[in-house]
């Protein structure tokens, strides 16, 4: 095995991140229960989906904060889940770049959402 490759994970030498991954996946799942219900409830109870209504919703600081929290937990939970799928189905040389790319995509999505909420909540305050 070349030096650029990390040691193979086996039962005898477990991945040091395995335990925290498992715990984070459960923690984010538990967080998603109330946040997921909240998001769907708010979305489906908006009087309309026009620009003014959506802006008015997110301009409320508490709503903006909850939306940010929802998006953060959703992307966190998604990143952990996607990583497991990549571990299971993408092997060899493709594994590392695929895992890195998808992690980056989650960060990009999170930053874009945070930017949008910031612009709406602060810009229209």
């Amino acid at each position, binding site marked *: 095995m070349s030096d650029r490759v990390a040691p193979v994970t086996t039962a005898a030498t477990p991945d040091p991140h395995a335990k925290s991954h498992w715990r984070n996946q459960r923690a984010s799942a538990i967080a998603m229960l109330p946040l997921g219900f909240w998001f769907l409830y708010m979305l489906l109870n908006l009087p309309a*989906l026009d620009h003014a209504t959506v*802006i008015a919703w997110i301009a409320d600081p508490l709503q903006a904060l909850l939306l940010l929290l929802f998006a953060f937990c959703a992307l966190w939970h998604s990143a952990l889940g996607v990583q497991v799928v990549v571990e*299971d189905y993408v092997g060899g040389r493709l594994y590392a770049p695929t895992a890195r790319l998808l992690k980056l995509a989650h960060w990009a999505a999170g930053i874009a*959402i945070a930017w949008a909420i910031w612009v709406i909540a602060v810009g229209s305050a």
Partner: protein
Amino acid sequence: MSSHDRPLSPHLQVYRLAFTTVLSGLHRISGLALSAASLLLVGWLVAAASGPQAYATAIRWFSSVPARLVLVAALGAFWYHLFNGLRHMAWDAGLGFEKSATRRSGLVVVGMTVLASILTLAPAWRFFWAWP
């Protein structure tokens, strides 16, 4: 990040598809679908932040027939992943491991998913009607 000289899993073709196998696969598929759907949330919020014109363009996009189908599918995936996630939490707590129990809890998850999807599809449809 650890590398992957370890074996891939699972070799789908060696398994006989059972009800619980399908549900297990659906948990992953619905999870991935929701991950993809998060891009719709990004598009929606970024468009809203970019102004009324960009938002109108986004809504025109969302109101296309394929996009509507994707949104309905995402709603179903949301409920399935949520209810089946609760089932996973019960397993984490050591509950319901018997073969008959996994079957029964699986049926409950499917039933709840169908019910919740129908109940939430009605308010979602109201937006679809209002769309161009």
